[in-house]
């Protein structure tokens, strides 16, 4: 703890969501067998890992008062690119029938490279044409989808090499591989956000873009970097998603952007810009994932699951904002 005296009330208010999350986990854990099992831990961590990586990408956009609605579709593009590269040699419906066994890392890098192009375009359009991020990335959402349709001809792609799909089932020290992916991504982003100039620039731009500009920060360049990096993370998300699903279609990743944005906001990334922590983003993603599993374990009717999920989004954010509401 700090040297400062510990304020229990503040601690509770600041971490309200975390407590509620713990409460929920305890309740479901006690009432539902197998919820607190190793298997479930590994399921949740696999789901969380992918969403977390995508949310990390979106977070930079949000912190600079932007947003990225193309996130989900870029995840989908990444997924489709990877999918076409990791098919079994003898798969009858092979996309590139003559393609040999592409090493996984190469497949990943190719997907990252392609996705980054679209992130780059997002960044350029936002910086130089001053198109509001919402619109720029909304347009990109549609464009990337179209491109993905053209690329795959809308056919689903499957028949992957087992070394690829085992990325998800595989474990190291009893912990799924995906967990490590997320860990590395999280540490990397934490470092970037807190220890490098780029991170400071990002927070400064989000806090006051004019101030950043007149302080000599290359605002355009920083934004471009943010959107490009984000797309790179989406590609990784797409890669893992494909491994997890065991197949990919143009619809992969669809709608993930909204969930990622909601997760970030729940985790304290402010839509007013300039605020947001990597640890918060993780909490935000966990809220979603734990909620989903819990509802399934509790056997909540699907239609009602939507209602609950919607309410949780709103309440989690309302709760979190309480601390800012401090009466004047």
């Amino acid at each position, binding site marked *: 703890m700090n040297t400062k005296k510990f304020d229990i009330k503040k601690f509770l208010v600041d971490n309200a969501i975390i407590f509620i999350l713990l409460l929920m986990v305890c309740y479901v854990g006690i009432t539902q067998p197998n919820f607190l099992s190793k298997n479930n831990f590994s399921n949740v961590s696999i789901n969380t890992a992918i969403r977390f990586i995508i949310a990390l990408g979106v977070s930079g956009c949000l912190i600079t008062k932007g947003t990225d609605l193309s996130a989900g579709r870029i995840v989908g593009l990444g997924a489709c690119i990877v999918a076409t590269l990791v098919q079994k040699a003898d798969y009858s419906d092979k996309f590139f029938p003559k393609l040999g066994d592409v090493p996984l890392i190469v497949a990943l890098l190719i997907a990252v490279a392609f996705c980054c192009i679209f992130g780059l375009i997002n960044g350029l359009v936002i910086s130089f044409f001053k198109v509001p991020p919402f619109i720029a990335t909304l347009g990109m959402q549609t464009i990337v989808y179209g491109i993905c349709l053209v690329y795959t001809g809308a056919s689903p792609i499957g028949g992957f090499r087992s070394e690829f799909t085992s990325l998800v089932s595989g474990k190291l020290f009893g912990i799924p591989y995906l967990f490590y992916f997320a860990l590395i991504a999280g540490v990397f982003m934490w470092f970037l956000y807190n*220890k*490098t*100039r780029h*991170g*400071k*620039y990002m*927070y*400064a731009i*989000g*806090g*006051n873009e*004019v*101030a*950043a*500009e*007149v*302080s*000599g*920060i*290359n605002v355009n360049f920083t934004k471009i970097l943010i959107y490009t990096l984000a797309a790179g993370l989406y590609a990784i998300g797409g890669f893992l998603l494909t491994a997890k699903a065991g197949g990919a279609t143009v619809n992969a990743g669809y709608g993930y952007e909204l969930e990622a944005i909601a997760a970030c906001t729940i985790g304290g990334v*402010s839509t007013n810009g*300039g*605020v947001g922590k990597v640890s918060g983003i993780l909490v935000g993603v966990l809220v979603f994932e734990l909620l989903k599993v819990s509802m399934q374990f509790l056997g909540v009717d699907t239609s009602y699951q939507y209602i609950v999920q919607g309410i949780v989004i709103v309440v989690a954010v309302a709760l979190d904002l309480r601390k800012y509401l401090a*009466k*004047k």
Partner: protein
Amino acid sequence: MPDYMLEMRGISKCFPGVKALDKVSIKIRPGTVHALMGENGAGKSTLMKCLFGIYKMDEGEVIYQGKPVSIANSNDALHKGIAMVHQELQPIPERSIAENIFCGRYPLKKVGPVKMVDHKKMYDEAKKLLKEVRMEYDPKAKLSTLSISQMQSVEIAKAVSMDAKVVIMDEPTSSLTDNEVEALFTIINDLRKKGVSIIYISHKMDEILRISDDVSIMRDGQYIGTWEAKELTTDIIISKMVGRELTNIYPQRDNVPGEVILEAKNLTSIHPKSFKNVDFKLRKGEILGLGGLVGAQRTELMEALFGMRHLAEGEIIYKGKPLNIKHPKDAIKGGIGLITEDRRGSGIFGVLSIADNVSIASLDKYLDMGIVLNGKKIEQIVKDNVAKLSIKTPSSKTQIQTLSGGNQQKVIISRWLANDPDILIMDEPTRGIDVGAKYEIYQIMVDLAKQGKTIIMISSEMSELIGMSDRILVMCDGKLTGEISGKEATQENIMQFATKFN
């Protein structure tokens, strides 16, 4: 070393509908303080923004250290050794004080191949710099915990720490207390000794005469001339700025305070560090000054009276009845108006027209059949006000954000004139206002008082308090420490009360 550190030649700049700069030329000597003066909207800030690369000039050239240069953007300007304190504060509230100071040039350290921000160095240096501007704040604290004046000090600290050859200061003291102003002047003198040129924009005559070596004057986007400060007096500067003689700084006060209209009893904020147990009375037709040091909680007190802040205790008797104010709209309905001190934050509607900005608080008055807004009536009231306050604007449809700071302030005053309140609270009403316009504003205050309105004026300028108030209340540390009648007020007795900490 060339004769001039910096020359701007034939600079012109047009905005839609305005020629903001018309072939302006000035020359800045090294190691001097060069004051730039002119009425609101004369083009001072615009000229500086052109120099600093925020605006692209339409024509003209800049000779810097003897060589023609073109400055593409702020980053470019900073690299060339030009720093600027901006008229509009540019805080990054959510980041630490130190990060605000080192924004864009964070100290780095190398860890292996990776360049990391050197936090320790950043905080240490920030601490040193803060000391220079007489601020003993934790550099790790969020900027948002500071008051406006403290933020301004931070910006000054930032600009002077840039190691620049030219430091532009666009109204750096607009929110500073006397104490802080003194600190600034010490810094400026040090810089001058090091051969740095300072371009200093201010509407405060005494400062100009004290600190500057040369004075350039602009009027309506044109360059009028440059003089050595020692040749000048306030009157000469004013007449060159305004283009005519200005005999008095304060108008004749011939209002007569009448019966008590409002009585505040035991007003206490919900925040322990804010105002407590404040009692005062307001009279019809009086101008009440509210003095004190920055941080004395004058703003908080008035905002509470206006329903923007919460009271823990206290009672307000208005026109003989208790008045329950929960929200500004309650206050406005009761006939109270407030011109806030933070013009950009809580005053202007930047993207809206002058007409909208003027009429917004009094729309109820322009209704036909109880619902339809009568455009003609609105247009009329706007026209009247633009004329009365001589607001410089191409049209009433112009977006207010394109006006100069001073003219924006006048538009906000118009908003409350249009609303016609019985009590008008003005928080630093002449901040950033040129002398000519100041007089106009003072005149309006007197006229209102003569019509039986009550004015409360918060001001950090002693002379303004003394010159304008029928009565002065002084606050210190959240408490009312004294009351002085206007006639008896002096700098000394106000200061005495203002520093009456327990």
